């Protein structure tokens, strides 16, 4: 009897794994193996054009670390990601607060404000590129209308400006999306808290600071962790607008990986950069896992 039960369990166990095998195999083949392979490649001098790929150990890492370009790339990544995150956060919160009020025509406003999220990123990138175009682009013209010609510049061509210019469309797309998540969280804050505060005569600002903000904090943290990873990883916007130029001024870490891999075809060096990208993100991934999984258990 006991033996039979055991056999039955084993059969059930195998059947369970058969059910999830399509995903296990996909994840192993499409994600685990490539990560392993990236690690492996990073220890070789692997130029796609060469026939021999000598093992160089950590030399590749050393070369990258002492390269001043590496610091520049890290700096760009940092500015780009934090800039997008912070500005989207402020705009997103403001919009969520607005949509949390009831007013006529709100449904229409909601649909309009979700449009950027449903617009292909490629179209967003191209539209902004065209707005940034000098003289005939919209931005230069607007500045001219408001007699601010002195601010006219080559938005995507000036190394001091380009990084910020590429951030704008990312923010434009992100904050509306964030706002809807914050809005959902705000709906979950108990109404009684506000009523009690009203009785005490609290100002709107104090209500926001002491009731709304703490109430949506868990959501806010999760969303911003995700946004950090998504924005850090994004190469499409930069690639379409500037391809990392002028003179590396918009080359973030992932853009660098892509450039080294598919413009110079130095797969070994690209893998070193890829591993650095991966290592930076692991911190955020662990934080994200800890928070989400705790929520799940609790």
């Amino acid at each position, binding site marked *: 009897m006991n033996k039979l039960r055991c056999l039955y369990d084993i059969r059930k166990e195998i059947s369970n794994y058969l059910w999830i095998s399509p995903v296990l195999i996909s994840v192993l083949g499409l994600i685990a193996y490539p990560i392993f392979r990236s690690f492996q490649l990073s220890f070789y001098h692997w130029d796609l054009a060469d026939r021999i790929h000598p093992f160089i150990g950590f030399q590749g890492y050393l070369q990258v670390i002492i390269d001043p370009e590496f610091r520049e790339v890290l700096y760009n990544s940092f500015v780009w990601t934090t800039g997008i995150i912070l500005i989207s956060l402020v705009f997103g919160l403001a919009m969520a607060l607005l949509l949390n009020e009831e007013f006529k025509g709100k449904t229409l406003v909601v649909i309009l404000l979700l449009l950027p999220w449903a617009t292909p990123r*490629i*179209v967003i990138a191209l539209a902004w590129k065209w707005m940034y175009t000098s003289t*005939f682009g919209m931005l230069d013209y607007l500045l001219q209308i408001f007699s601010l010609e002195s601010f006219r510049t080559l938005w995507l061509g000036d190394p001091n400006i380009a990084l910020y210019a590429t951030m704008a469309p990312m923010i434009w797309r992100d904050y509306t999306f964030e706002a809807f998540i914050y809005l959902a969280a705000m709906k979950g804050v108990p109404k009684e808290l506000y009523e009690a505060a009203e009785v005490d005569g609290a100002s709107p600002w104090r209500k926001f600071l002491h009731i709304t903000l703490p109430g949506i904090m868990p959501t806010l943290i*999760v969303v911003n962790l995700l946004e950090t*990873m998504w924005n850090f990883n994004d190469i499409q916007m930069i690639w379409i607008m500037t391809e990392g130029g002028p003179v590396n001024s918009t080359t973030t870490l992932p853009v660098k990986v892509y450039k080294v891999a598919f413009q110079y075809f130095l797969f070994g060096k690209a893998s070193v950069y*890829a591993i650095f990208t991966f290592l930076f993100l692991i911190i955020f991934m662990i934080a994200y896992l800890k928070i989400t999984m705790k929520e799940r258990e609790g």
Partner: protein
Amino acid sequence: MKKPRNWILIYVGALFFIVLVLIPYFWVLSTSLKPHEDIFRLPIRWIPERPVLTHYLNILFGPENFQQKFLNSLIVTFSTVMIALVISITSAFALARFRIRGKFTILKTILVSQMIPTVVLFVPLYEVFAFLRILDTYWALIIGNMTFCIPFAVWLLRSFFLSIPKSIEDAGLVDGCSRMQVLLKIVLPISGPGLVTTAAFIFIYSWQEYILALTYLNSASKYTLPVALTSFIGQYSTQWGSLMAASVIVTIPIIILFLLLKRFIVSGVMGGAIKG
């Protein structure tokens, strides 16, 4: 209860956000309807003086063979949606209902896989695709899309299956159905919204995928729409009129999908897709 004091502030705020959101759309539409000379003429006319459809006709029936690109995008996107769903459904159900050893670890792995920087995968996948001789085919894009779509679909579908009351399935099991029959005959027929939402998200993801197509495709005849769009950016001059008209055409299917499935997508964005 509520004081009507701040409605002006609300409408001013709403107007501000709407203008901020709509300006690029307006600019794109306006450009796409202007004759070439008017695009490069100052002062800028916001409303085209002489609206023309030349750019649209040029795109749809011109030498760029946009219809082919549209078809390529449709093939890749539909294949991605179908394959991702088929691969994910059984696993999502098993991870929602069965007691599996190491389930928690598997769930964690799936969650993390969505966050892996895609650039880390590009070089190894290039090698694999070269080895399989599928570079420059739709398969490279479809398989490449799977790196994101499968973990995403499993996660989203699982949360939908979790929300179905278990008693419905238990009735089936008592009647002697196998687990597969329960899934196919009882669970899937009532999971319409979950499947539609998941499919919509994958569709939107795949429709606008650009970097994979840029990296793994060589022949222009296989280009998907996003790559085809960038081919309008010339070395010296860019055909902004045609480019913007093409942008409108690429956007329309997604906007239609979005408006049709608004209810599902908004709830997905607000709940399932983010918090799992």
